[in-house]
C-alpha cells in the first residue's frame, strides 16, 4: 500500500511539471497581460512600469524558471490582477465552490441511486419509464439554459428562492460556510440543482444498468433461493456489487463538479473558483491560472487514489499491488 501511494505521488510530480509548462507556454502565446490590465489612457512610461512590476520584462524562459524555483518552495507567484499570492486568491474562493459541489453531489447521490434502483428493479413500470425519460432530458439540456429557467421559475415568477448570489456565511470548522443555516442554504438550492442535474441523470442511468445486469446473476438467485430477506439482498449484496463502477464515476464527477462548475457559478453569480478562473483567463492572470490548474490536477490525482483504495475495500478481489501493471 505504501509503495503504491509513493509511486502515485512521484507520477503526480511529473504531471504537475508538464501541466505548469503547458499552461505557462499557452498563456504566453495568447497575449500580453499588460495590454489587458493597463488602463487605455496609460502612456508608454506607465506601460513599461507595469511590465517591470509584474516581472514580464524578462524573457519567457527566465520567467518560467523563476516560477519553478519559487514553486519548489511552495510559492506559486502573485496574481497580476489582485496583487496577492495566487494560492491565497484561490483558497479564498474554495469554500464557496466546495459547498456548492457538496450540495450538488448529495442531490445526485441521494436522489439518483434510489431512483436508479427503482428503475432497475421494476423496468416495466410507468414510473420507471418516466424516471428514464426525465434523465434523458437532464442529460441533454444545456446547463446555462436550465439555470436561467430555474431562476425564471423559482425566483422571478414564484419568488420562493433567491435568484443569485451566495447567502450569509457562518464560521464552521474553520471555514466560512453558507450552507449550515437555512438563510444561506436557500441560496445554494437552485445552483445546486442546476449543477446536479447532469450528474443525477448519469447516476440514475448507470445504477439502473448495473442493477439490470446484476439481478440476473447467479449470486442474487442463490441469495433468493437461500431465503434471504429482500432488503438484505438489495442493501448488502446487490448494492455492494453495483457500487464499484458507481464509485468511479461519482469520484470523477466530484472532481469535475469542483473544478468546472464555471457555467453554474457565472449564471448564479456564485463567488467560487470557477468564476475566478474564467476571469483570470480573460485577464491573462497567469499565476492564478497556473496555480488553479495545478490544484485541479492534484485534486484529480487524490480522488483517483481514494477511488483505488475504495475498490479494494468494496471488492476483496482487487489488490492495490495489481495497479502496478
Amino acid at each position: 500500500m505504501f509503495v503504491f501511494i509513493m509511486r502515485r505521488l512521484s507520477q503526480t510530480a511529473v504531471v504537475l511539471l508538464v501541466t505548469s509548462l503547458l499552461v505557462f507556454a499557452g498563456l504566453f502565446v495568447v497575449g500580453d497581460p499588460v495590454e489587458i490590465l493597463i488602463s487605455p489612457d496609460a502612456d508608454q512610461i506607465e506601460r513599461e512600469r507595469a511590465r517591470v512590476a509584474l516581472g514580464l520584462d524578462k524573457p519567457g524562459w527566465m520567467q518560467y524558471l523563476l516560477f519553478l524555483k519559487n514553486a519548489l518552495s511552495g510559492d506559486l507567484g502573485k496574481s497580476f490582477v489582485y496583487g496577492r499570492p495566487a494560492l491565497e486568491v484561490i483558497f479564498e474562493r474554495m469554500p464557496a465552490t466546495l459547498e456548492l459541489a457538496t450540495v450538488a453531489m448529495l442531490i445526485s447521490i441521494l436522489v439518483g441511486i434510489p431512483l436508479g434502483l427503482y428503475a432497475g428493479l421494476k423496468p416495466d413500470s410507468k414510473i420507471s419509464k418516466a424516471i428514464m425519460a426525465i434523465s434523458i432530458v437532464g442529460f441533454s439540456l444545456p446547463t446555462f439554459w436550465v439555470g436561467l429557467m430555474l431562476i425564471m421559475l423559482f425566483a422571478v415568477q414564484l419568488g420562493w428562492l433567491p435568484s443569485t448570489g451566495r447567502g450569509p456565511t457562518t464560521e464552521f470548522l474553520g471555514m466560512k460556510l453558507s450552507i449550515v443555516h437555512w438563510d444561506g442554504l436557500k441560496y445554494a438550492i437552485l445552483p445546486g440543482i442546476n449543477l446536479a442535474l447532469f450528474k443525477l441523470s448519469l447516476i440514475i442511468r448507470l445504477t439502473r444498468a448495473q442493477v439490470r445486469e446484476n439481478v440476473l446473476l447467479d449470486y442474487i438467485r442463490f441469495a433468493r433461493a437461500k431465503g434471504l430477506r429482500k432488503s438484505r439482498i438489495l442493501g448488502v449484496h446487490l448494492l455492494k456489487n453495483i457500487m464499484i463502477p458507481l464509485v468511479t464515476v461519482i469520484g470523477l464527477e466530484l472532481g469535475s463538479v469542483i473544478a468546472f462548475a464555471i457555467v453554474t457559478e457565472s449564471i448564479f453569480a456564485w463567488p467560487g473558483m470557477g468564476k475566478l478562473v474564467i476571469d483570470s483567463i480573460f485577464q491573462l492572470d497567469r499565476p492564478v491560472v497556473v496555480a488553479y490548474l495545478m490544484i485541479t490536477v492534484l485534486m484529480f490525482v487524490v480522488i483517483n487514489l481514494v477511488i483505488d483504495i475504495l475498490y479494494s475495500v468494496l471488492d476483496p478481489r482487487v489488490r492495490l499491488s495489481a495497479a502496478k501493471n
Partner: protein
Amino acid sequence: MRFLTCMPRVLLLAFLSFQSLSLSANELVVGLAAPITSLDPHYHNLTPNISVAKQVFEPLFLTDAFQNLKPGLAESWRNIDPLTYEIKLRKGVKWHDGSPFVAEDVLASFKRIPDVPNSPASFALYVRQITEATAPDAHTLILKTAKPYTGLIRDLNSAQIVPKAVAESAKTEDFNSGKAMIGTGPYKFVEYKPGDRVVFARNDEYWGGKGDWTTVQMRMIANNAARVAALLAGDLQMIENVPTPDVKRLSSNKDLAIAQAVSNRIIYLHMDSNRTKNSPFVRTADGKPMEEANPLTDPRVRRAISKAMNRDVIVERIMETVAVPAGQLIAEQFFGTSKNLPVEKYDPEGAKKLLAEAGYPNGFQLTLHAPNNRYINDEKIAQAVAQFLTRVGIVTKLETMPSNIFFSRGSKLEFSFMLAGWASESGDPSSPLRSLLGTYDATTGTGAANRGRFSSPELDALTTDAMIEIDEAKRGAKLALASEKAIELMGIVPLHYEVSVWGTRANLTYAARADQYTLAHEVKIKK
C-alpha cells in the same frame, strides 16, 4: 427571456408587493456588471474599481453627469502662472474616523499614487506632471508643473484622496481587509467579499448632505441575463449595463425604470497608417499582396470608408437604438467638442467615387480585426462594417477574437484595419487626441494607444496648443479645432457612441452618468 412578456401579471404583482414589504425601505441593492479586483483606490486603474471606490473616497473635484467639474473636496482653483496652480480646499470636511480633512492628506495621497507595489495599472500618470506640491496652509494647495499642462485639474479627478496616515502606511491588503477604508465620501465601508459583494453604510456627516440609503450592497453579477433576472425577481433594486435587447422590455415594465445617457466611449475604426506598402491584411482586388502602396494611408480612401458606413443601421438594428451615431471623438454634450462636425452621411456612391479618384476603381481586399467580448455587440458591428465595405468594392473579411488576444496583437501592429473603442476619462477630446491620434512617442507619452500609428504634425501642433491653453473657454475652442482636424484627416473613422443604461425599480431615479460610474449617493427615492 422572450417569454417574460407573457408572464402572469397578477402573480408578479403579488410577488413584488410581498418583496417590497420584506425589504427594508432604506437598503439599496445594486447589481454591478463586473467584479472589482481590489478596494485600494490607487491599485488598479479599472472602471469597476473606481466606481466602487467612489462610494467611500473622493477626488479633489467632483463631476456632473457629463464630466464637467464641480466643487468637491476642493472648492476652487486658479492658475497663478502657467506652471502654478492654487487649489482652495473645503473647510470642515471630516474623514470617516472623525479626523479633519486637510491639505497634508492630499499631498500624502499624491505621494502614494505612483508608489503602489505590484500595481498592474497604476494612477501614476495622473499625477506625473506635478513636479512640486506644497501646502502653505491647511486648506490651500500649490501645485507646480515642469511645462504648461492644462489637463492637470481633470487628471486629478482620477486621484482619490485618502488620509495621510493611511497613505503613508497602508498596503493594498489593508484596503481589502477594510482597515484602511477611511474616506470622506457619502458612504462608509462595511464589508467586502471578493467576487461577491461590497457593503456600505451611510456617512451621516457627509459634507454634501445625507444620501437616501442607510445601507448599500453592491453585488457583482457579471452574467447579463442573471443580472436582469435578479432585478425582475426583486432581489436587486438597480442594475448596471442593461443588455441592449432588454432595454425596451424593461422600460415597458411599469415596475421598472430605465436611466440612460450617452457615454464617453466611442466605437471607431483604426487603420494602418504606419506602413507605406505591404500592409499585412491589405490585398489587391485580385488577392495579391499590395507591394506598391498602402491605400489606408490615403485620406480619400479613409473618407470613402467613412462614407460607406451606414451608422443609422448600426444604431437602429444592432444596438436597438441604445447608441448614438458619431461624427467626432466624443459626444457633442461634452466639453471641447465641435459644433461643425455632423455625422457623416451614408453615401456608397460617393465612397466609390473617392476610391476611383484614389486609384482603386475596382476596390481592394481587406481583413477587419475586432474583439468579440469587449464592447457592446462588438462582433455584430464588425460584421456590419465588413458588409458595408464590401458593398462599395472593398471586399472585407472579418476576424474576431477575445480581447486578450486582440489588444496584444494590435499593439504589436499585426493588423491593418481594426474596430475598437475609446473612453475619454478626461471627459473632453484631449484624451483621444493625445493617446489615440497623437504621434507615437515614448518620450512625451503621446500615441500610447495609437495602434494604427496615425501621425500628423499639423494635428499634433493643434493638440499641444490646446493642452497649454490656460483659459478654459479658449481651451475648449482649441480642442474643438483639433477634433475638426482629426476628422478632416480621418485619423480614425468614428462609428457611434455607446450609451450607458441602468435599470431600476420604478420608485427610484438615477441621473445617468457618461462616465459609467454607479454612485449610490445619486440614486434617489422618488418623492
